[in-house]
Protein backbone atom coordinates (compact mmCIF):
# COMPACT_ATOMS: atom_id res chain seq x y z
CA UNK A 1 0.00 0.00 0.00
CA UNK A 2 1.73 3.08 -1.22
CA UNK A 3 -0.97 5.40 0.09
CA UNK A 4 -0.70 4.24 3.68
CA UNK A 5 0.59 6.59 6.32
CA UNK A 6 2.41 5.68 9.47
CA UNK A 7 1.52 7.33 12.72
CA UNK A 8 3.06 7.42 16.14
CA UNK A 9 0.23 7.48 18.61
CA UNK A 10 0.75 8.76 22.14
CA UNK A 11 -1.90 7.86 24.70
CA UNK A 12 -2.35 10.12 27.72
CA UNK A 13 -4.42 9.63 30.85
CA UNK A 14 -4.91 13.21 31.83
CA UNK A 15 -5.90 16.41 30.11
CA UNK A 16 -3.30 18.58 31.87
CA UNK A 17 -0.46 16.20 30.99
CA UNK A 18 -1.69 16.22 27.40
CA UNK A 19 -1.81 20.01 27.25
CA UNK A 20 1.73 20.20 28.57
CA UNK A 21 2.85 17.56 26.09
CA UNK A 22 1.30 19.49 23.20
CA UNK A 23 3.42 22.53 24.06
CA UNK A 24 6.57 20.42 24.45
CA UNK A 25 6.07 18.42 21.26
CA UNK A 26 5.29 21.49 19.22
CA UNK A 27 8.22 23.24 20.86
CA UNK A 28 10.49 20.45 19.64
CA UNK A 29 9.43 21.32 16.11
CA UNK A 30 7.20 18.31 15.59
CA UNK A 31 4.04 18.66 13.52
CA UNK A 32 1.06 17.11 15.27
CA UNK A 33 -1.47 15.41 13.01
CA UNK A 34 -4.39 15.75 15.47
CA UNK A 35 -5.21 15.41 19.14
CA UNK A 36 -8.24 13.37 20.21
CA UNK A 37 -10.12 13.61 23.47
CA UNK A 38 -13.31 12.28 25.06
CA UNK A 39 -14.57 15.82 25.70
CA UNK A 40 -13.73 19.31 24.47
CA UNK A 41 -10.65 20.70 26.21
CA UNK A 42 -10.56 24.36 27.01
CA UNK A 43 -7.73 26.19 25.28
CA UNK A 44 -6.58 23.29 23.10
CA UNK A 45 -7.19 25.29 19.90
CA UNK A 46 -4.64 27.86 20.93
CA UNK A 47 -2.17 25.20 22.05
CA UNK A 48 -2.43 23.49 18.67
CA UNK A 49 -2.40 26.79 16.82
CA UNK A 50 -5.82 26.32 15.26
CA UNK A 51 -7.60 29.35 13.91
CA UNK A 52 -10.99 30.28 15.28
CA UNK A 53 -13.82 28.51 13.55
CA UNK A 54 -15.61 30.55 10.91
CA UNK A 55 -18.90 28.78 11.61
CA UNK A 56 -20.40 31.85 13.35
CA UNK A 57 -19.98 33.78 10.11
CA UNK A 58 -21.62 30.98 8.16
CA UNK A 59 -24.50 30.98 10.63
CA UNK A 60 -24.94 34.72 10.17
CA UNK A 61 -25.02 34.42 6.39
CA UNK A 62 -27.55 31.59 6.52
CA UNK A 63 -29.60 33.59 9.02
CA UNK A 64 -29.89 36.68 6.84
CA UNK A 65 -30.73 34.44 3.89
CA UNK A 66 -33.63 33.14 5.99
CA UNK A 67 -34.80 36.66 6.86
CA UNK A 68 -34.63 37.69 3.23
CA UNK A 69 -36.54 34.62 2.03
CA UNK A 70 -39.26 35.12 4.64
CA UNK A 71 -39.74 38.81 3.92
CA UNK A 72 -39.61 38.32 0.16
CA UNK A 73 -42.21 35.57 0.32
CA UNK A 74 -44.59 37.50 2.55
CA UNK A 75 -44.24 40.86 0.84
CA UNK A 76 -44.63 39.34 -2.59
CA UNK A 77 -47.61 37.10 -1.81
CA UNK A 78 -49.56 39.57 0.30
CA UNK A 79 -48.55 42.81 -1.36
CA UNK A 80 -48.23 41.94 -5.03
CA UNK A 81 -49.31 38.48 -6.11
CA UNK A 82 -52.74 38.45 -4.45
CA UNK A 83 -53.39 41.64 -2.47
CA UNK A 84 -56.44 41.32 -0.24
CA UNK A 85 -58.37 43.84 1.75
CA UNK A 86 -58.20 42.51 5.29
CA UNK A 87 -60.16 44.91 7.46
CA UNK A 88 -58.78 47.85 5.51
CA UNK A 89 -55.29 47.15 6.79
CA UNK A 90 -52.12 47.77 4.86
CA UNK A 91 -51.32 45.12 2.30
CA UNK A 92 -47.76 44.84 3.57
CA UNK A 93 -48.18 44.88 7.35
CA UNK A 94 -44.55 44.69 8.39
CA UNK A 95 -45.14 44.20 12.15
CA UNK A 96 -47.16 41.08 11.35
CA UNK A 97 -44.21 39.73 9.42
CA UNK A 98 -41.87 39.80 12.42
CA UNK A 99 -42.71 36.36 13.87
CA UNK A 100 -42.25 34.40 10.64
CA UNK A 101 -39.16 36.39 9.64
CA UNK A 102 -37.64 35.55 12.98
CA UNK A 103 -38.55 31.86 12.82
CA UNK A 104 -37.14 31.43 9.32
CA UNK A 105 -33.97 33.28 10.31
CA UNK A 106 -33.42 30.80 13.11
CA UNK A 107 -34.38 27.83 10.95
CA UNK A 108 -32.00 28.74 8.13
CA UNK A 109 -29.16 29.70 10.49
CA UNK A 110 -29.45 26.49 12.51
CA UNK A 111 -29.74 24.10 9.58
CA UNK A 112 -27.19 25.95 7.49
CA UNK A 113 -24.63 26.04 10.25
CA UNK A 114 -25.11 22.43 11.26
CA UNK A 115 -24.90 21.39 7.60
CA UNK A 116 -21.68 23.34 7.24
CA UNK A 117 -20.27 21.76 10.38
CA UNK A 118 -21.11 18.22 9.28
CA UNK A 119 -19.64 18.83 5.84
CA UNK A 120 -16.48 20.52 7.14
CA UNK A 121 -15.84 17.73 9.64
CA UNK A 122 -17.01 15.04 7.21
CA UNK A 123 -19.60 13.73 9.61
CA UNK A 124 -22.11 11.61 7.75
CA UNK A 125 -23.78 8.28 8.44
CA UNK A 126 -21.59 6.66 5.79
CA UNK A 127 -18.30 8.21 6.99
CA UNK A 128 -15.50 5.77 7.74
CA UNK A 129 -13.54 7.33 10.59
CA UNK A 130 -9.87 6.71 11.34
CA UNK A 131 -9.89 5.62 14.97
CA UNK A 132 -6.42 5.77 16.47
CA UNK A 133 -7.55 4.26 19.73
CA UNK A 134 -10.97 2.99 20.72
CA UNK A 135 -10.56 4.41 24.19
CA UNK A 136 -10.60 8.01 22.95
CA UNK A 137 -14.36 8.15 23.33
CA UNK A 138 -14.03 6.65 26.78
CA UNK A 139 -11.24 8.10 28.91
CA UNK A 140 -8.00 8.45 26.94
CA UNK A 141 -6.39 11.44 25.27
CA UNK A 142 -4.50 10.68 22.11
CA UNK A 143 -1.89 12.57 20.13
CA UNK A 144 -1.26 11.32 16.59
CA UNK A 145 1.92 12.28 14.76
CA UNK A 146 2.34 11.59 11.05
CA UNK A 147 5.78 10.07 10.46
CA UNK A 148 5.79 11.11 6.83
CA UNK A 149 5.42 14.77 7.71
CA UNK A 150 8.16 14.93 10.28
CA UNK A 151 11.91 14.82 10.01
CA UNK A 152 12.33 13.04 13.34
CA UNK A 153 12.64 9.28 13.36
CA UNK A 154 10.11 6.93 14.89
CA UNK A 155 12.34 6.26 17.86
CA UNK A 156 12.90 9.93 18.59
CA UNK A 157 9.17 10.61 18.48
CA UNK A 158 8.42 7.66 20.75
CA UNK A 159 10.93 8.95 23.22
CA UNK A 160 9.60 12.49 23.02
CA UNK A 161 6.06 11.31 23.79
CA UNK A 162 7.10 9.03 26.65
CA UNK A 163 9.24 11.76 28.16
CA UNK A 164 6.23 14.06 28.16
CA UNK A 165 3.93 11.79 30.08
CA UNK A 166 2.36 9.48 27.50
CA UNK A 167 1.25 6.34 29.29
CA UNK A 168 1.55 4.29 26.10
CA UNK A 169 3.07 4.92 22.71
CA UNK A 170 1.71 2.89 19.81
CA UNK A 171 2.08 2.85 16.09
CA UNK A 172 -0.66 2.79 13.56
CA UNK A 173 -0.73 2.41 9.84
CA UNK A 174 -3.64 4.02 8.08
Amino acid sequence: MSNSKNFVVGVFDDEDVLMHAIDEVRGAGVKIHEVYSPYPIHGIDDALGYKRSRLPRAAFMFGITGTTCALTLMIWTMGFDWPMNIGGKHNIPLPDFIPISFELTVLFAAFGMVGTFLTASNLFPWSKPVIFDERITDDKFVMAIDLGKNAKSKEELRQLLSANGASEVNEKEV
Partner: protein
Amino acid sequence: MHISSHVRPDLVTGGKTLHDVTEDISRHVESKPNPRWLIAFGLSVLLLGYGLYNVYKTVWFGIGMWGLNKTVGWAWDITNFVWWVGIGHAGTLISAILLLFRQKWRTSINRAAEAMTIFAVLCAASFILEHMGRPWLAYWPLPLPNAFGSLWVNFNSPLVWDVFAISTYLSVSVVFWYIGMIPDLATIRDRATNKISKIVYGSLSFGWTGGAKDWSRYESVSLILAGLSTPLVLSVHTIVSFDFATSVIPGWHTTIFPPYFVAGAIFSGFAMVLTLMLITRAVYKLEDYITLEHIETMNKIIILTGSIVGVAYITEFFIAWYSGVEYEAYAFINRATGPYWWAYWSMMTCNVISPQLLWIRKLRRNIAATFIISIIVNIGMWFERFVIIVTSLHRDYLPSSWAMFFPTSVDVGDYLNSFGLFFTLFFLFAKFLPVINMAEVKGILKSSQKHHEKAYSKKSESAHV
Protein backbone atom coordinates in the same frame (compact mmCIF):
# COMPACT_ATOMS: atom_id res chain seq x y z
CA MET B 1 -6.54 32.53 37.97
CA HIS B 2 -9.49 30.29 38.50
CA ILE B 3 -11.70 31.43 41.34
CA SER B 4 -14.53 29.21 42.40
CA SER B 5 -17.00 29.36 45.20
CA HIS B 6 -16.33 26.91 47.98
CA VAL B 7 -19.97 26.85 48.90
CA ARG B 8 -21.10 25.09 45.76
CA PRO B 9 -20.93 21.32 46.17
CA ASP B 10 -19.70 18.89 43.54
CA LEU B 11 -21.83 18.44 40.47
CA VAL B 12 -20.97 14.75 40.23
CA THR B 13 -20.53 12.83 43.46
CA GLY B 14 -19.00 9.47 44.26
CA GLY B 15 -15.47 10.30 43.01
CA LYS B 16 -16.22 9.10 39.49
CA THR B 17 -13.44 8.72 36.96
CA LEU B 18 -13.89 9.33 33.25
CA HIS B 19 -14.20 5.61 32.69
CA ASP B 20 -16.85 5.30 35.42
CA VAL B 21 -18.97 7.85 33.59
CA THR B 22 -18.74 5.83 30.39
CA GLU B 23 -19.59 2.63 32.25
CA ASP B 24 -22.47 4.02 34.26
CA ILE B 25 -24.26 5.52 31.29
CA SER B 26 -23.39 3.10 28.49
CA ARG B 27 -24.28 0.08 30.59
CA HIS B 28 -27.99 0.77 30.18
CA VAL B 29 -27.70 0.94 26.42
CA GLU B 30 -25.63 -2.23 26.18
CA SER B 31 -27.43 -4.50 28.62
CA LYS B 32 -30.54 -6.49 27.80
CA PRO B 33 -33.77 -4.66 28.67
CA ASN B 34 -34.69 -5.35 32.26
CA PRO B 35 -38.14 -6.69 33.15
CA ARG B 36 -39.27 -3.41 34.70
CA TRP B 37 -38.46 -1.59 31.47
CA LEU B 38 -40.31 -4.20 29.45
CA ILE B 39 -43.41 -3.85 31.64
CA ALA B 40 -43.34 -0.05 31.53
CA PHE B 41 -42.73 -0.01 27.79
CA GLY B 42 -45.46 -2.60 27.21
CA LEU B 43 -47.97 -0.54 29.16
CA SER B 44 -47.06 2.58 27.17
CA VAL B 45 -47.54 0.75 23.91
CA LEU B 46 -50.92 -0.55 25.12
CA LEU B 47 -51.91 2.99 26.05
CA LEU B 48 -50.76 4.20 22.66
CA GLY B 49 -52.77 1.44 21.00
CA TYR B 50 -55.93 2.44 22.85
CA GLY B 51 -55.17 6.08 22.04
CA LEU B 52 -54.66 5.38 18.35
CA TYR B 53 -58.04 3.63 18.26
CA ASN B 54 -59.57 6.87 19.54
CA VAL B 55 -57.58 8.94 17.08
CA TYR B 56 -58.92 6.69 14.35
CA LYS B 57 -62.46 7.43 15.57
CA THR B 58 -61.69 11.16 15.66
CA VAL B 59 -60.35 11.19 12.14
CA TRP B 60 -62.88 8.79 10.64
CA PHE B 61 -66.05 10.23 12.16
CA GLY B 62 -64.81 13.79 12.60
CA ILE B 63 -64.34 16.02 15.60
CA GLY B 64 -68.04 15.73 16.35
CA MET B 65 -66.82 12.77 18.41
CA TRP B 66 -65.55 15.31 20.92
CA GLY B 67 -67.77 17.10 23.40
CA LEU B 68 -67.57 20.38 21.49
CA ASN B 69 -70.70 22.42 20.90
CA LYS B 70 -71.65 25.65 19.14
CA THR B 71 -70.35 27.78 22.00
CA VAL B 72 -67.31 25.85 23.13
CA GLY B 73 -65.45 25.25 19.88
CA TRP B 74 -62.02 24.80 21.43
CA ALA B 75 -61.67 22.56 24.43
CA TRP B 76 -59.44 19.61 25.27
CA ASP B 77 -57.72 19.58 21.90
CA ILE B 78 -56.26 23.04 22.30
CA THR B 79 -55.84 22.64 26.06
CA ASN B 80 -53.73 19.55 25.48
CA PHE B 81 -51.84 21.20 22.65
CA VAL B 82 -50.85 24.22 24.73
CA TRP B 83 -50.07 22.00 27.71
CA TRP B 84 -47.71 19.76 25.74
CA VAL B 85 -46.02 22.65 23.98
CA GLY B 86 -45.48 24.24 27.37
CA ILE B 87 -43.88 21.06 28.70
CA GLY B 88 -41.73 21.04 25.61
CA HIS B 89 -40.01 24.23 26.70
CA ALA B 90 -37.81 22.98 29.50
CA GLY B 91 -35.40 20.95 27.40
CA THR B 92 -34.28 23.74 25.18
CA LEU B 93 -34.32 26.15 28.07
CA ILE B 94 -32.01 23.88 30.04
CA SER B 95 -29.60 23.27 27.22
CA ALA B 96 -29.68 26.68 25.57
CA ILE B 97 -30.27 29.33 28.21
CA LEU B 98 -28.30 27.49 30.89
CA LEU B 99 -25.45 26.98 28.43
CA LEU B 100 -25.32 30.71 27.73
CA PHE B 101 -25.34 31.39 31.47
CA ARG B 102 -22.59 28.76 31.97
CA GLN B 103 -24.69 26.80 34.42
CA LYS B 104 -22.68 23.59 34.49
CA TRP B 105 -25.26 21.62 36.41
CA ARG B 106 -27.25 21.38 33.21
CA THR B 107 -24.86 18.73 31.85
CA SER B 108 -26.46 15.86 33.77
CA ILE B 109 -30.00 16.63 32.75
CA ASN B 110 -29.88 18.31 29.35
CA ARG B 111 -29.97 15.16 27.21
CA ALA B 112 -33.11 13.70 28.79
CA ALA B 113 -34.75 17.11 29.03
CA GLU B 114 -34.16 17.75 25.32
CA ALA B 115 -35.52 14.33 24.42
CA MET B 116 -38.56 15.09 26.55
CA THR B 117 -38.96 18.39 24.73
CA ILE B 118 -39.02 16.74 21.35
CA PHE B 119 -41.52 14.09 22.43
CA ALA B 120 -43.75 16.69 24.08
CA VAL B 121 -43.77 18.84 20.95
CA LEU B 122 -44.69 15.75 18.90
CA CYS B 123 -47.62 15.15 21.27
CA ALA B 124 -48.64 18.79 20.87
CA ALA B 125 -48.46 18.43 17.11
CA SER B 126 -50.70 15.36 17.26
CA PHE B 127 -53.46 17.53 18.76
CA ILE B 128 -53.08 20.12 16.03
CA LEU B 129 -53.50 17.42 13.42
CA GLU B 130 -56.56 16.00 15.18
CA HIS B 131 -57.97 19.48 15.73
CA MET B 132 -57.77 20.16 12.00
CA GLY B 133 -60.45 17.50 11.52
CA ARG B 134 -59.04 16.60 8.14
CA PRO B 135 -55.40 15.94 8.88
CA TRP B 136 -54.71 14.90 5.30
CA LEU B 137 -55.03 18.60 4.45
CA ALA B 138 -52.49 19.57 7.10
CA TYR B 139 -50.28 21.14 4.45
CA TRP B 140 -52.83 23.89 3.77
CA PRO B 141 -51.35 26.38 6.25
CA LEU B 142 -48.08 26.23 4.31
CA PRO B 143 -47.55 28.91 1.68
CA LEU B 144 -47.59 26.55 -1.29
CA PRO B 145 -48.73 27.39 -4.80
CA ASN B 146 -52.16 25.82 -5.01
CA ALA B 147 -55.17 25.08 -7.15
CA PHE B 148 -57.18 28.05 -5.89
CA GLY B 149 -55.54 30.59 -8.18
CA SER B 150 -52.51 30.96 -5.91
CA LEU B 151 -54.55 32.19 -2.97
CA TRP B 152 -51.84 32.39 -0.33
CA VAL B 153 -52.09 31.87 3.40
CA ASN B 154 -52.84 34.96 5.47
CA PHE B 155 -49.57 35.99 7.05
CA ASN B 156 -51.46 38.26 9.45
CA SER B 157 -52.80 35.22 11.22
CA PRO B 158 -51.16 34.05 14.44
CA LEU B 159 -52.25 30.52 13.55
CA VAL B 160 -49.96 30.68 10.53
CA TRP B 161 -47.18 32.12 12.71
CA ASP B 162 -47.71 29.14 14.97
CA VAL B 163 -47.18 26.70 12.11
CA PHE B 164 -43.80 28.28 11.47
CA ALA B 165 -42.90 28.61 15.13
CA ILE B 166 -43.74 25.05 16.16
CA SER B 167 -42.15 23.43 13.13
CA THR B 168 -38.99 25.51 13.47
CA TYR B 169 -38.84 24.75 17.17
CA LEU B 170 -39.31 21.03 16.64
CA SER B 171 -36.72 20.75 13.89
CA VAL B 172 -34.12 22.96 15.58
CA SER B 173 -34.59 21.06 18.86
CA VAL B 174 -34.08 17.75 17.08
CA VAL B 175 -30.87 19.05 15.50
CA PHE B 176 -29.59 20.47 18.78
CA TRP B 177 -30.31 17.20 20.55
CA TYR B 178 -28.75 15.04 17.86
CA ILE B 179 -25.58 17.07 17.41
CA GLY B 180 -25.06 16.90 21.17
CA MET B 181 -25.47 13.14 21.06
CA ILE B 182 -22.97 12.36 18.30
CA PRO B 183 -19.89 12.06 20.59
CA ASP B 184 -21.79 9.78 22.98
CA LEU B 185 -23.02 7.61 20.14
CA ALA B 186 -19.38 7.28 19.13
CA THR B 187 -18.59 6.08 22.64
CA ILE B 188 -21.20 3.37 22.29
CA ARG B 189 -19.89 2.49 18.83
CA ASP B 190 -16.36 2.07 20.16
CA ARG B 191 -17.54 -0.14 23.00
CA ALA B 192 -19.93 -2.24 20.91
CA THR B 193 -19.12 -5.92 20.88
CA ASN B 194 -21.70 -7.25 18.48
CA LYS B 195 -21.80 -6.57 14.80
CA ILE B 196 -25.28 -5.08 14.59
CA SER B 197 -24.74 -2.42 17.22
CA LYS B 198 -21.37 -1.62 15.68
CA ILE B 199 -23.06 -0.92 12.37
CA VAL B 200 -26.09 0.88 13.83
CA TYR B 201 -24.21 3.11 16.27
CA GLY B 202 -21.43 3.48 13.71
CA SER B 203 -23.74 5.16 11.27
CA LEU B 204 -25.64 7.03 13.98
CA SER B 205 -22.38 8.52 15.27
CA PHE B 206 -21.55 9.96 11.83
CA GLY B 207 -17.91 8.83 12.03
CA TRP B 208 -17.06 10.96 15.05
CA THR B 209 -13.42 10.66 16.16
CA GLY B 210 -13.10 13.26 18.89
CA GLY B 211 -10.43 15.29 17.11
CA ALA B 212 -9.60 18.71 18.49
CA LYS B 213 -10.66 20.44 15.29
CA ASP B 214 -14.04 18.71 15.38
CA TRP B 215 -14.51 19.55 19.06
CA SER B 216 -13.74 23.16 18.33
CA ARG B 217 -16.38 23.26 15.61
CA TYR B 218 -18.76 21.28 17.79
CA GLU B 219 -18.41 23.80 20.57
CA SER B 220 -18.98 26.77 18.34
CA VAL B 221 -22.03 25.05 16.84
CA SER B 222 -23.42 24.35 20.32
CA LEU B 223 -22.88 27.90 21.41
CA ILE B 224 -24.55 29.40 18.37
CA LEU B 225 -27.40 26.90 18.44
CA ALA B 226 -27.89 27.91 22.08
CA GLY B 227 -27.87 31.56 21.10
CA LEU B 228 -30.45 30.89 18.41
CA SER B 229 -32.59 28.60 20.53
CA THR B 230 -32.86 31.00 23.44
CA PRO B 231 -34.99 33.58 21.63
CA LEU B 232 -36.62 30.70 19.74
CA VAL B 233 -37.90 29.01 22.87
CA LEU B 234 -39.24 32.31 24.14
CA SER B 235 -40.85 33.06 20.78
CA VAL B 236 -42.68 29.75 20.55
CA HIS B 237 -44.91 30.13 23.55
CA THR B 238 -45.25 33.84 22.83
CA ILE B 239 -46.70 32.95 19.45
CA VAL B 240 -48.89 30.25 20.99
CA SER B 241 -50.24 32.93 23.32
CA PHE B 242 -50.88 35.21 20.31
CA ASP B 243 -53.40 32.61 19.13
CA PHE B 244 -55.47 33.82 22.06
CA ALA B 245 -54.22 37.33 22.71
CA THR B 246 -54.88 38.65 19.21
CA SER B 247 -58.51 37.52 19.34
CA VAL B 248 -61.34 39.67 20.75
CA ILE B 249 -62.66 37.09 23.23
CA PRO B 250 -62.86 38.50 26.77
CA GLY B 251 -60.39 36.54 28.89
CA TRP B 252 -58.09 35.95 25.90
CA HIS B 253 -57.60 39.50 24.68
CA THR B 254 -54.84 40.47 27.08
CA THR B 255 -51.35 41.84 26.50
CA ILE B 256 -49.96 39.96 29.51
CA PHE B 257 -50.24 36.64 27.69
CA PRO B 258 -46.80 36.29 26.08
CA PRO B 259 -44.64 36.55 29.24
CA TYR B 260 -47.30 34.77 31.28
CA PHE B 261 -47.40 31.84 28.86
CA VAL B 262 -43.61 31.62 28.66
CA ALA B 263 -43.26 31.56 32.46
CA GLY B 264 -45.98 28.93 32.66
CA ALA B 265 -44.26 26.87 30.00
CA ILE B 266 -40.95 26.84 31.84
CA PHE B 267 -42.80 26.09 35.05
CA SER B 268 -44.57 23.04 33.67
CA GLY B 269 -41.54 21.97 31.65
CA PHE B 270 -39.32 21.85 34.71
CA ALA B 271 -42.00 19.99 36.60
CA MET B 272 -42.14 17.35 33.87
CA VAL B 273 -38.33 17.12 33.74
CA LEU B 274 -38.34 16.50 37.49
CA THR B 275 -41.05 13.85 37.25
CA LEU B 276 -39.15 11.96 34.57
CA MET B 277 -35.66 12.48 35.96
CA LEU B 278 -36.63 11.27 39.41
CA ILE B 279 -37.91 8.05 37.87
CA THR B 280 -34.92 7.64 35.54
CA ARG B 281 -32.54 8.42 38.39
CA ALA B 282 -34.05 5.73 40.59
CA VAL B 283 -34.35 3.07 37.89
CA TYR B 284 -30.89 3.65 36.41
CA LYS B 285 -29.22 4.38 39.76
CA LEU B 286 -27.92 7.76 38.62
CA GLU B 287 -27.86 9.32 42.08
CA ASP B 288 -24.26 10.43 41.59
CA TYR B 289 -25.08 12.33 38.43
CA ILE B 290 -28.48 13.76 39.24
CA THR B 291 -27.78 14.78 42.80
CA LEU B 292 -29.93 16.48 45.37
CA GLU B 293 -28.24 19.71 44.26
CA HIS B 294 -29.70 19.30 40.79
CA ILE B 295 -33.13 18.59 42.21
CA GLU B 296 -32.91 21.57 44.53
CA THR B 297 -31.79 23.90 41.74
CA MET B 298 -34.67 22.79 39.54
CA ASN B 299 -37.04 23.30 42.45
CA LYS B 300 -35.78 26.84 42.80
CA ILE B 301 -36.62 27.49 39.16
CA ILE B 302 -40.07 26.06 39.86
CA ILE B 303 -40.57 28.53 42.73
CA LEU B 304 -39.44 31.42 40.53
CA THR B 305 -41.59 30.58 37.51
CA GLY B 306 -44.50 29.47 39.72
CA SER B 307 -44.40 32.86 41.43
CA ILE B 308 -44.31 34.67 38.09
CA VAL B 309 -47.34 32.67 37.03
CA GLY B 310 -49.08 33.54 40.33
CA VAL B 311 -48.39 37.23 39.86
CA ALA B 312 -49.70 36.97 36.30
CA TYR B 313 -52.99 35.42 37.50
CA ILE B 314 -53.50 38.19 40.01
CA THR B 315 -52.50 40.95 37.58
CA GLU B 316 -54.91 39.57 35.02
CA PHE B 317 -57.71 39.69 37.55
CA PHE B 318 -56.81 43.21 38.63
CA ILE B 319 -56.62 44.50 35.06
CA ALA B 320 -59.98 42.93 34.22
CA TRP B 321 -61.51 45.14 36.90
CA TYR B 322 -59.28 48.16 36.33
CA SER B 323 -59.88 48.22 32.56
CA GLY B 324 -63.54 48.93 33.21
CA VAL B 325 -64.53 46.59 30.41
CA GLU B 326 -67.73 44.92 31.51
CA TYR B 327 -67.22 41.75 29.47
CA GLU B 328 -63.64 41.32 30.59
CA ALA B 329 -64.62 41.76 34.23
CA TYR B 330 -67.46 39.25 33.83
CA ALA B 331 -65.17 36.69 32.23
CA PHE B 332 -62.92 36.76 35.26
CA ILE B 333 -65.65 36.80 37.89
CA ASN B 334 -67.18 33.88 36.04
CA ARG B 335 -63.88 31.99 36.09
CA ALA B 336 -63.57 32.21 39.85
CA THR B 337 -67.20 31.88 40.87
CA GLY B 338 -69.08 30.49 37.83
CA PRO B 339 -69.82 26.87 37.01
CA TYR B 340 -66.13 26.21 36.41
CA TRP B 341 -65.02 27.54 39.79
CA TRP B 342 -63.53 24.14 40.65
CA ALA B 343 -61.22 24.26 37.64
CA TYR B 344 -60.12 27.79 38.51
CA TRP B 345 -59.41 26.98 42.13
CA SER B 346 -57.64 23.73 41.22
CA MET B 347 -55.40 25.82 39.01
CA MET B 348 -54.78 28.38 41.77
CA THR B 349 -54.02 25.72 44.37
CA CYS B 350 -51.76 23.64 42.16
CA ASN B 351 -49.86 26.46 40.49
CA VAL B 352 -49.76 29.28 43.00
CA ILE B 353 -49.85 27.63 46.40
CA SER B 354 -48.13 24.26 45.97
CA PRO B 355 -44.80 25.59 44.57
CA GLN B 356 -44.56 28.00 47.50
CA LEU B 357 -44.01 24.95 49.72
CA LEU B 358 -40.61 24.69 48.07
CA TRP B 359 -39.37 27.69 50.03
CA ILE B 360 -38.78 25.09 52.72
CA ARG B 361 -35.31 23.65 52.12
CA LYS B 362 -36.25 20.26 53.52
CA LEU B 363 -39.03 19.84 50.98
CA ARG B 364 -36.82 21.11 48.16
CA ARG B 365 -34.36 18.35 48.93
CA ASN B 366 -36.95 15.69 49.55
CA ILE B 367 -37.43 13.37 46.61
CA ALA B 368 -40.94 12.22 47.43
CA ALA B 369 -42.15 15.79 48.04
CA THR B 370 -40.51 17.01 44.84
CA PHE B 371 -42.06 14.21 42.87
CA ILE B 372 -45.54 14.91 44.20
CA ILE B 373 -45.25 18.67 43.68
CA SER B 374 -43.97 18.17 40.14
CA ILE B 375 -47.07 16.17 39.31
CA ILE B 376 -49.38 18.64 41.06
CA VAL B 377 -47.81 21.46 39.05
CA ASN B 378 -48.50 19.69 35.80
CA ILE B 379 -52.09 19.03 36.79
CA GLY B 380 -52.38 22.72 37.65
CA MET B 381 -50.89 23.78 34.35
CA TRP B 382 -53.38 21.61 32.49
CA PHE B 383 -56.19 23.30 34.41
CA GLU B 384 -54.71 26.71 33.60
CA ARG B 385 -55.10 26.07 29.87
CA PHE B 386 -58.53 24.52 30.38
CA VAL B 387 -59.65 27.54 32.41
CA ILE B 388 -58.33 30.02 29.85
CA ILE B 389 -59.90 28.21 26.92
CA VAL B 390 -63.17 26.74 28.12
CA THR B 391 -64.31 29.25 30.74
CA SER B 392 -63.65 32.16 28.37
CA LEU B 393 -65.76 30.53 25.69
CA HIS B 394 -68.61 28.84 27.51
CA ARG B 395 -70.53 32.03 28.31
CA ASP B 396 -70.43 34.27 25.29
CA TYR B 397 -72.32 37.50 24.64
CA LEU B 398 -75.77 35.90 24.31
CA PRO B 399 -77.01 34.13 27.43
CA SER B 400 -79.20 31.94 25.20
CA SER B 401 -76.08 30.33 23.80
CA TRP B 402 -74.37 29.72 27.12
CA ALA B 403 -73.21 26.13 27.40
CA MET B 404 -70.99 23.73 29.27
CA PHE B 405 -68.33 21.45 27.93
CA PHE B 406 -68.47 17.75 28.72
CA PRO B 407 -65.65 15.57 27.43
CA THR B 408 -66.53 12.34 25.65
CA SER B 409 -64.65 9.08 25.84
CA VAL B 410 -62.91 10.05 22.60
CA ASP B 411 -61.67 13.29 24.20
CA VAL B 412 -60.20 11.21 27.00
CA GLY B 413 -58.86 8.64 24.55
CA ASP B 414 -57.07 11.26 22.48
CA TYR B 415 -55.50 12.67 25.62
CA LEU B 416 -54.37 9.19 26.66
CA ASN B 417 -52.99 8.75 23.17
CA SER B 418 -50.56 11.59 23.77
CA PHE B 419 -49.39 9.97 27.00
CA GLY B 420 -48.95 6.68 25.21
CA LEU B 421 -46.92 8.36 22.50
CA PHE B 422 -44.85 10.36 24.97
CA PHE B 423 -43.93 7.45 27.20
CA THR B 424 -43.36 5.00 24.36
CA LEU B 425 -40.85 7.41 22.84
CA PHE B 426 -39.29 8.23 26.18
CA PHE B 427 -38.80 4.59 27.11
CA LEU B 428 -37.27 3.85 23.71
CA PHE B 429 -34.92 6.78 24.23
CA ALA B 430 -33.99 5.62 27.72
CA LYS B 431 -33.16 2.15 26.46
CA PHE B 432 -31.34 2.75 23.20
CA LEU B 433 -29.65 6.12 23.65
CA PRO B 434 -27.40 7.48 26.40
CA VAL B 435 -29.67 9.31 28.87
CA ILE B 436 -26.91 11.55 30.18
CA ASN B 437 -24.53 13.56 28.06
CA MET B 438 -21.34 11.63 28.86
CA ALA B 439 -18.97 13.94 27.00
CA GLU B 440 -20.24 17.03 28.78
CA VAL B 441 -20.24 15.38 32.18
CA LYS B 442 -16.65 14.24 31.57
CA GLY B 443 -15.77 17.82 30.72
CA ILE B 444 -16.90 19.13 34.09
CA LEU B 445 -15.66 16.16 36.09
CA LYS B 446 -12.14 17.35 36.66
CA SER B 447 -12.86 20.92 37.70
CA SER B 448 -15.52 19.60 40.02
CA GLN B 449 -13.20 17.09 41.66
CA LYS B 450 -10.22 19.43 41.83
CA HIS B 451 -12.34 21.87 43.68
CA HIS B 452 -13.38 19.07 45.95
CA GLU B 453 -9.77 18.26 46.81
CA LYS B 454 -8.97 21.91 47.37
CA ALA B 455 -11.92 22.41 49.65
CA TYR B 456 -11.02 19.24 51.47
CA SER B 457 -7.38 20.19 52.04
CA LYS B 458 -8.46 23.62 53.24
CA LYS B 459 -10.81 22.06 55.73
CA SER B 460 -8.17 19.71 57.08
CA GLU B 461 -5.67 22.57 57.32
CA SER B 462 -7.99 24.67 59.40
CA ALA B 463 -8.78 21.64 61.53
CA HIS B 464 -5.08 21.17 62.09
CA VAL B 465 -4.67 24.76 63.27
